[in-house]
């Protein structure tokens, strides 16, 4: 082996070593949480989270799921789980569809001021929730639906609209114009072209959008806390309540189990869909 080749080999080893160390930085917090959640209640009294469980068991998981206490009730995160599901499904479906139609309208139809609209949407995507919280609260309570399931669904749709619209708009703008023109000559109208030409070609972007919205809505805390109402609190809110209720001994095994249960759905989606997830996050991030 020549000097150059040996140096290259050392460089390679150093490179992969560094990568492995950094991967440890990313994985250890999760591994530690998993390990803690498998510990028994005795082990958790005075311990370090960096130790492995001596007798791993899922008791903590069962307790976290069904009987952990949030200070208001002791029903575990199961309550939150189903609440999150009930919030998630209508929110995702409607916001994705609304975004798709909006993006479609802005890309293939000559709308005067389309560029202005897109710029306005882009600004909306950057506005922090906190700035428009109070007006929304006031408006919903005036209408009378504040603190309810329809309220939180509506809120998620409102907050998802700019990003979804821009996401779909950019995608549809990349599709050839001839498709729409040919369909128009054939006599199809706005909605028919959407249903029969655009949607069939949108499978990829629909998956990406759905993943983006699902992850965002499932992981949301602030909006759920404020708009969902006591009976519809999402899992993240339940989790925080459980983990910060400090009556007596802190049951870290239960808290970590609850955290894992909350993190599991988006994590599973991530592991299953890999490429789509990445595309969604980067597309949602690099808007336009």
């Amino acid at each position, binding site marked *: 082996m020549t000097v150059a080749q040996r140096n290259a080999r050392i460089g390679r080893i150093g*490179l992969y070593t560094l*990568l492995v160390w*950094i991967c440890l930085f*990313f994985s250890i*917090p999760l591994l*530690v949480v998993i390990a*803690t959640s498998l510990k028994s209640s005795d082990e958790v009294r005075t311990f*370090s*989270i*960096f130790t492995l469980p001596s007798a791993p068991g899922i008791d903590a998981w069962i307790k976290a799921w069904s009987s952990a206490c949030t200070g208001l009730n002791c029903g575990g995160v199961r309550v939150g789980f189903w609440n999150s599901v009930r919030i998630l499904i209508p929110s995702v479906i409607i916001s994705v569809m609304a975004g798709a*139609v*909006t993006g*479609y*309208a802005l890309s293939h*139809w*000559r*709308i005067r001021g389309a560029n202005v609209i897109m710029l*306005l949407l882009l*600004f*909306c995507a*950057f*506005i*922090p*929730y*906190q*700035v*428009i*919280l*109070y*007006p929304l609260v006031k408006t919903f309570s005036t209408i009378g639906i504040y603190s309810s399931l329809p309220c939180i669904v509506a809120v998620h*749709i*409102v907050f998802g*609209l*700019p990003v979804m*619209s821009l996401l779909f708009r950019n995608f549809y703008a990349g599709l050839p114009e001839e498709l729409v023109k040919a369909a128009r000559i054939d006599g199809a*109208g*706005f*909605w028919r072209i959407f249903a029969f030409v655009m949607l069939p070609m949108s499978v990829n972007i629909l998956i990406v959008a759905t993943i983006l919205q699902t992850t965002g809505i499932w*992981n949301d*805390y*602030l909006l759920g806390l*404020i708009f969902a109402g006591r009976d519809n609190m999402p899992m*993240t809110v339940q*989790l*925080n309540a459980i*983990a*910060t209720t400090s009556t007596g001994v802190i049951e*870290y095994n239960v*808290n*970590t189990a609850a*955290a894992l249960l*909350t993190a599991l759905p*988006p994590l599973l989606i*991530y592991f299953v869909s890999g490429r789509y*997830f*990445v595309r969604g*996050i*980067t597309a949602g*991030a*690099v808007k336009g």
Partner: protein
Amino acid sequence: MTISGSRLPAAEGVSTAPRIGRAYRVRSLAAKLALVPTLLVMLSCYYGSVTWTVYISMTRSFLLPVYKFAGTAQYERLFATPRWQVAYGNMFVFGALDIIGTLGLGILLAILLDRAVRFEGVFRTIMLYPLSISFIVTGLTWQWVLSPTIGFQHLVRDLGWTDFVFDWITQPDRAIYTLVFAGIWHQSGLIMAIMLAGLRGVDREIWRAARIEGIPTWRTYVSIILPMLRPLIVTCVVLIAIAVVKSYDLVVAMTNGGPGFSSDLPGKFVVDFEFERANIGQASAAATVMLGSVLAIVSPYLYFELARKNR
């Protein structure tokens, strides 16, 4: 006598030209109608709300909105409030460290993966999974990891260094820095993915030219490749900065603003004052300052982006 659509309105279906013209206008109308809900939402929920909030911030509101104009009185009170001073200052401290750390790690990882040939899929999967985890879980996890009683300090002491101290999360003047760990952990993967795509888009002949000139690899990245990706890096900075301004979930889960208010951030300040403290005036003023910060970051960015694309 020739038959033409315009002369026989009853038979306008006969000639194609007017029919297409009319149908075009109809279809275009459908598109405009389809946009109306979105436009309504945008104008009322976003721009309307923003205007409302800004207006309240200039009134003498306290518990309930009182629409008596008060100029900048709310802002003066706001910036005289110690808790806000801490929160606002924290935003810059946290922001600067988070941006430098996340950007630095993200770019480093992108470069490493650009060089590495094997196992890229595995590495990417490990680096990106934190993005799928909510800020609540992220915050709780790092709270546990950095806790002196059960976390890192405990571990090191167990290993033998019994005098080791790492209790930043319980120290008022250090607590804000702990948020940086969580922030970097959560978002570096995203920056890595964006920058890696950018690195891969660079013309490979530039690499060959640099190699022939004898320019070492690290120097090529620093002096040639990364400067070429400046617009992308700016985009990344903007993204991280916006996330910092919006932060709420992370603070709540990790330190809940504590100890005391030492790790408070504007995002949490606004929500606390709006609901717990029920001081609409102060909350609106704080929210408007948040909005101003975002605009200060985004406007020049968008302006330069548009200028660049139009060139």
